[in-house]
């Protein structure tokens, strides 16, 4: 299925979930509707990530004003350091330490923005917000894709570097 088709389904689901809220339901029914809405919102956020390009090459080129030697050093440092931060993030999630989760997600988000890792930046943005709202299932869901996304980004980054 293509991304735009999934996006259309998510939008339709949001409209249907909205209709449910006006139904005269018992308390348990209202709770169920609320849960449906939350899941649809989460899906919409995932879609927002899906829609974002992984690598903004222009941002990285602009970062160093086109100096290749400097890019190599910076990229290497980024790829070496961020796994450690992701591991710290994992430990904070295990410990359910929301403030540490939020702060680490904020840091990785900033680094990702600097290196043109647009999708990773977006994941970390959602993760940071989820931590601020203490939504552990959303935190876990975002973290599960973050680690993988970082690997994908580093691979794409290194390929691009090799082609320069």
């Amino acid at each position: 299925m293509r991304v735009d088709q999934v996006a259309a389904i998510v939008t339709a689901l949001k409209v249907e979930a909205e209709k449910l809220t006006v139904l005269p339901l018992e308390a348990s029914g209202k709770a169920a509707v609320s849960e449906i809405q939350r899941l649809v919102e989460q899906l919409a956020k995932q879609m927002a990530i899906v829609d974002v390009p992984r690598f903004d090459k222009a941002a990285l080129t602009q970062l160093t004003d086109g100096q290749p030697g400097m890019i190599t050093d910076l990229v290497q440092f980024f790829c070496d350091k961020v796994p450690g931060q992701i591991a710290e993030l994992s430990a904070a999630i295990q410990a359910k330490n929301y403030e540490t989760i939020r702060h680490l997600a904020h840091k990785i988000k900033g680094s990702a923005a600097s290196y043109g890792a647009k999708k990773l930046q977006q994941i970390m943005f959602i993760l940071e917000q989820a931590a601020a709202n203490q939504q552990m299932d959303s935190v876990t869901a975002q973290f599960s894709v973050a680690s993988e996304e970082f690997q994908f980004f580093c691979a794409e980054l290194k390929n691009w570097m090799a082609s320069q």
Partner: protein
Amino acid sequence: MIRCLIIEDDPVTVHLLSTLIEADGNTCVVSNSPKEATEHYVSGSFDCALCPYDLGKESGIDVVRAIKAWDPALSVIIVTSVQDRDVIKQSFREGAIDFLSKPVSAPALHAAIEAAEAKTKQQRNYIETEVSLRRARETNAIFSNLVPKEISKYTKVAFLPYHEVGGDFFKIVPLENDIFAFVIGDVSGHDLRSALIAAYFQGLLHGTTEKDKCIMKTLEALNDLLYAEWERNNRDAFNSVMSSVSVNVLTLDLSQRLMSISAAGFPPPMWIDSDGSITKPTLNSPPVGWQVPLEMANCKADIAHTSAIFTATDGLDDIAQNLDIDACAVTSHLFLKDRIGKDIMRDDLLCLQIVLDDVSPMPLIHQRYSGAQHGEVDVLQKFWRRSLEFALDVRSEALDNALLCCREAVLNAIKHGCKCEANAVVTLDVSYYPSTRTVRMRVSDPGPGFSYDVHAQRTEVIDKGHLNKSFDDHLSFGLIIIDSLAAHYHFERNGATIVVDCQC
């Protein structure tokens, strides 16, 4: 080379920023927190600081506050991926000068730290100037309170600076036994240049008078110097800077009770006798530095009956003009209340009181009115009220009565003493005796005076109800009012001067 302080706990961002900064030949040091930075480095070591918006336990706003408290001149740049308008606004309010959004580009970072360095330099210069100005003002205040021990019991000094720094100064020069010269001056302008010239002049005065006791020679030397500078600047500069010095030199022989005055450009001094009469000579001459040779206005005075002498810089007249009151009232307020609100000041104010009697009246009003001003008495009365209320800080029925007596005495003098003629002059001196809380009004006219039993007239008109021709005569009616309201009154010069005392 720009010296940057990076406050950041994220190694990736630190590495990125330091790489970009050092690539341009600049230097940077890294701290994990503002606390660490302030403990390890000396304030003033950096040209700019970079910090994130979110530093975990501390927000970027906290960081900006901490840095500004440590080094107020240091420019702070916030580097963040947060794009919140309120956050940006608050950062600027706290003193951040720039806000860089991630991804940060090398050119944008370079431009930002260059601008930050320039801003820091500007702030450091500004703070340095502020500190210098404050020190200069404090030093000026110290100079202005230097009174030789042997004359200290005679002298009271009030120095109220309005500008950060200025050229008001005074110096007492002992000449011989019991002979002292009181020199009060004001260099034009309100800047370090003015303060420097004032200090130079005081030094010159000190040195030359130590040697030959001739103040005039010093003034002439200063006049030549300032005039030559003006000539040199004026020849080839459109915006030439010219300094001049207004100065009053009062030479007092305390044993012979004689005073000579030399004045250039200032309001003249004034003195008050024990009977409340006030003297303010007319002395017109340009300030020192305007012309060669120096011409000063001179006069001599017998101060045998004088209680106190006052001389002040023109800041005193500025206050009087600003409030539309008599300058004497400002003088009295200054020494009676020991303060003047800065809101009413327009210039630095230095005022000197030389006290010759232990019980000295204070001057409140010294005015001269033409015989043609008979229609203006309501306006004059308002002026007197403002002056007295300001000087004494009092509003009371007793003051109303004093003002009414003053009005009647002045009207009598204008109508009868001056015959309402424009070239005839009435003199009004109002003074205050603090020990008895008495306001004394002395009204003199150039007329021949009169012979009149006021008290008998009052008994005739008020007590017996005998209205006769004289009741229509303002002389008798005005004097009956004074007789009714004043604590005491008497006539001098065959009635051409009336002296009225009212308790206030």
